[in-house]
């Protein structure tokens, strides 16, 4: 979707909001209450989707923010606050509570995160039921009977519109791209310099839900623990977002409309089992429609509806094959001679020492080959340098500064770029978006449009020009490795850690790759550590070879020296090589 279309979507939403604002002046009170319900659930479902769909954290306690908001509003309002003050308080207090709770929560991922958030609902239920002096316990709070439906309705229209605009802004922005990279692989995103900010999004989403809770509580003029924190009601907005199509601009809207009307029909014809019915929808969506209605094959075949189901991907005018010049600044001549230093780095997994006392100094502009048998600790060393692992003891210094206490994104900003042996691309993004995210992760990120254009250069450099706007999931394993390199380069590293890129390449491709490595050093001044099993490739370009065996450095020197080393021949080339002449 281009920016123009985003503007058009906001325009359509604005006209719709204005029209909806006039509904109370001509429609029946039943219609007004239905529209109110649609607006409320849209706001809740969509604000949930920022965290659940875009960021990929399944937050099952989103409804609790609505409940806390309603309670804060009710308590403030019954104590004489103006309704706008009470609403502001509702969103503020809820934001603070959620910000605090999210500190422990975001130490969890996947189902664990989902589970811990779900457990918050009974916690708030217990609090609301038992803090009687504040919440009036299970009896609930009755707000003064006033004619507020008109104002509350307008406020809800405004909030729903705000939610829609925020969504379009999140989706089409560098911020949105970064958020989606976290969804696809949080650790890889951090390693390319992305400052992870799940908490910020969760707080924004909570503030919106709390405001909705305040408005709706005022509108209902009664709240109690069951309607605010009940398990069966709490999951309804989530079911709506997922039923429609998570992370699609129109997905939550479709889900809300379908489920609200289905529920009205149900209320009219069935007296029991409403909760079971919702449970069944949730279960069936999980079992058969992982992507929601809009992504189902049936809907995709209907032309008009399929327009709503369009996945969002960033593009730009620049494409095709650009070969010349990468946006990389060679380091200034005044910089320190030692680029990277490992001082007695050890890493233990339980009782197993993966690295013991590894000391290594790499000078600026050097290309160092790191070899050793499988399991000798090569990748572990990379992981210790890029802070995927905490070192057990020892220190890593970049440009003389210790990086051992830094976050992963700070390590990237310090100048460490890396590839992964098993590629960790952002699966649901395009090749261009993958590289753009790395450009945006720089400490001085370019403008968004520039980043999208610039990404094309890096993509073409590694030979993926034909796949620029293809989804990563369509790439072969080898092409993903090339993408790894492009992404690592786009972070503008001073030191590049390459973890087995050549295995699987044809001889011609290997030569090309070796030429690239040489060019990266000669032209852009990069310092490179290269882990590789294809020794003939390594031998063409390295200044020095470091050999690891069982977590220890057993040799460190130029090719000739290391090759004739007896220990190396025994450990790496096999005992037989030790008997024959050195190559």
């Amino acid at each position, binding site marked *: 979707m281009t920016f123009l279309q985003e503007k058009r979507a906001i325009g359509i939403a604005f006209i719709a909001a204005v029209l909806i604002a006039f509904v109370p002046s001509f429609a029946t009170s039943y219609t007004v209450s239905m529209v109110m319900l649609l607006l409320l659930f849209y706001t809740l479902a969509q604000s949930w989707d920022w965290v659940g769909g875009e960021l990929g954290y399944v937050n099952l306690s989103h409804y609790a923010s609505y409940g806390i908001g309603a309670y804060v509003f009710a308590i403030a309002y019954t104590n004489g606050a103006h309704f706008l003050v009470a609403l502001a308080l509702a969103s503020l207090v809820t934001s603070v509570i959620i910000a605090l709770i999210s500190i422990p929560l975001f130490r*969890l991922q996947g189902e664990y995160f989902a589970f811990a958030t779900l*457990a918050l609902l009974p916690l708030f239920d217990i609090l609301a039921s038992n803090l009687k002096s504040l919440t009036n316990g299970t009896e609930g709070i009755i707000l003064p009977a006033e004619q507020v439906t008109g104002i509350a309705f307008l406020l809800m229209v405004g909030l729903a519109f705000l939610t829609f605009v925020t969504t379009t802004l999140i989706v089409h922005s560098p911020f949105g791209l970064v958020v989606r990279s976290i969804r696809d692989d949080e650790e890889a995103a951090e390693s390319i310099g992305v400052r992870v900010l799940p908490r910020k999004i969760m707080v924004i989403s909570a503030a919106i839900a709390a405001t909705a809770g305040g408005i709706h509580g005022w509108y209902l003029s009664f709240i109690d623990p069951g309607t605010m924190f009940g398990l069966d009601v709490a999951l309804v907005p989530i079911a709506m977002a997922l039923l429609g199509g998570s992370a699609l601009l129109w997905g939550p809207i479709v889900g809300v409309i379908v489920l609200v009307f289905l529920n009205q029909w149900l209320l009219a014809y069935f007296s029991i*089992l409403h909760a079971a019915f919702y449970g069944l929808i949730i279960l069936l969506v*999980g079992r058969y429609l992982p992507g929601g209605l809009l992504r189902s094959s049936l809907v995709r075949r209907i032309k008009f509806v399929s327009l709503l189901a369009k996945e969002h991907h960033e593009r730009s005018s620049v494409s095709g094959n650009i070969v010349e010049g990468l946006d990389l600044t060679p380091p200034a001549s005044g910089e320190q001679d030692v680029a990277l230093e490992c001082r007695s780095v050890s890493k233990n997994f339980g009782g197993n020492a993966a690295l013991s006392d590894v000391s290594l100094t790499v000078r600026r502009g050097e290309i160092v080959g790191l070899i050793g048998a499988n399991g000798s600790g090569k990748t572990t060393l990379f992981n210790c340098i890029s802070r995927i692992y905490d070192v057990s003891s020892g220190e890593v210094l970049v440009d003389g500064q210790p990086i051992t206490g830094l976050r992963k994104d700070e390590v990237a900003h310090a100048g460490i770029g890396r590839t992964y042996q098993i590629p960790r691309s952002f699966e649901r993004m395009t090749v261009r978006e993958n590289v753009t995210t790395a450009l945006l992760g720089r400490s001085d990120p370019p403008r968004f449009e520039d980043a999208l254009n610039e990404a094309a250069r890096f993509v073409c450099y590694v030979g993926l020009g034909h796949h620029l706007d293809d989804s990563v999931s369509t790439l072969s394993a080898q092409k993903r490795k090339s993408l790894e390199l492009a992404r690592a380069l786009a972070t503008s590293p001073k030191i590049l850690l390459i973890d087995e890129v050549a295995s699987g390449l044809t001889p011609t491709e290997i030569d090309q790759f070796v030429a690239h490595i040489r060019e990266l050093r000669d032209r852009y001044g990069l310092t490179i550590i290269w882990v590789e099993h294809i020794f003939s490739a390594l031998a063409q370009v390295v200044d020095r070879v470091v050999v690891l065996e069982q977590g220890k450095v057993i040799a460190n020197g130029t090719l000739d020296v290391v090759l004739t080393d007896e220990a190396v021949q025994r450990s790496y080339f096999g005992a037989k090589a030790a008997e024959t002449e050195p190559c």
Partner: protein
Amino acid sequence: MAYLPDFGILAQLLINGILLGGLYALIAFGLSVIYGVAGILNFAHGTILAMISIAAAILFESLRLPLAVILLVLTPAGFVFGWVFHKVLLSPLQAREPHQRTIGTVLVTVGALIIIGDVTAVLAGAEQRVIRLSSTFFEIGSVIVSGTQIGILVAVSVSMIALHLFLVMSWTGSSIRAVAQNRIGAALCGADASNTSAMTFAIGASIVAIAGVLYVISYPVNPYSGFPLTVKAFSIILLGGVGNLPGTLIAGLFLGVAEAFVAFYWAPQWAPAISIIIVLGGLLLFPGLARTRRAA
């Protein structure tokens, strides 16, 4: 008096806590085995327990069946339920990409939890049920222990030891542990990961069936009291470690005792909040707790 702890009361609270904690540990172990092997965090775990507890109470009240018979009927029933549930609803999700698999299992088990609770309430009524056994009481000093309590404690211990031996000694047990450690490797050795997962889910469901019968002997259960138990079981495996039997047992006992003390010295209505507060506090103080999670 309020300032000096009475040792009789302390001992009584400790024993009550251990009884409750033993049951928690058994429930948690069912959840833990399922999560460790099948990779499924079963949100409906406690709700299945509540359903079985209510079935047990009904069988006991209306048919006057002896407890042993009820156990003999409901444990296999739990097994079959678990097997079918996994085969029909969860197994097909394994083919999806990780993120969708997570969302899929969360939705399916959360959906099941709502359906089971609601349907049980409609069929059996929403009221509390409990099996009241007449029992002899033993007095040791000022501490009173009932024969039923001792019986439950023995049954919990026997179930956990039996499960441990099964996992360690039998071929099925070995294949379960193998799949827990490495799905593909286990498959190469002839342990069918899909069937093993279903088997584990079924075993987890039968453990929860045993726990359900034992639980309803001491504590009242209604169709909606299952979810708080799931939350507790989850807290316990987070503290004790996934698939770690001794860790689960210790964490379970700890939670049971903590709840007993909070209920007595503060107020009973705050006891259910303990587990989630322990989890949040634990994560805050020891970020390493989160490392017990499965790698994606």
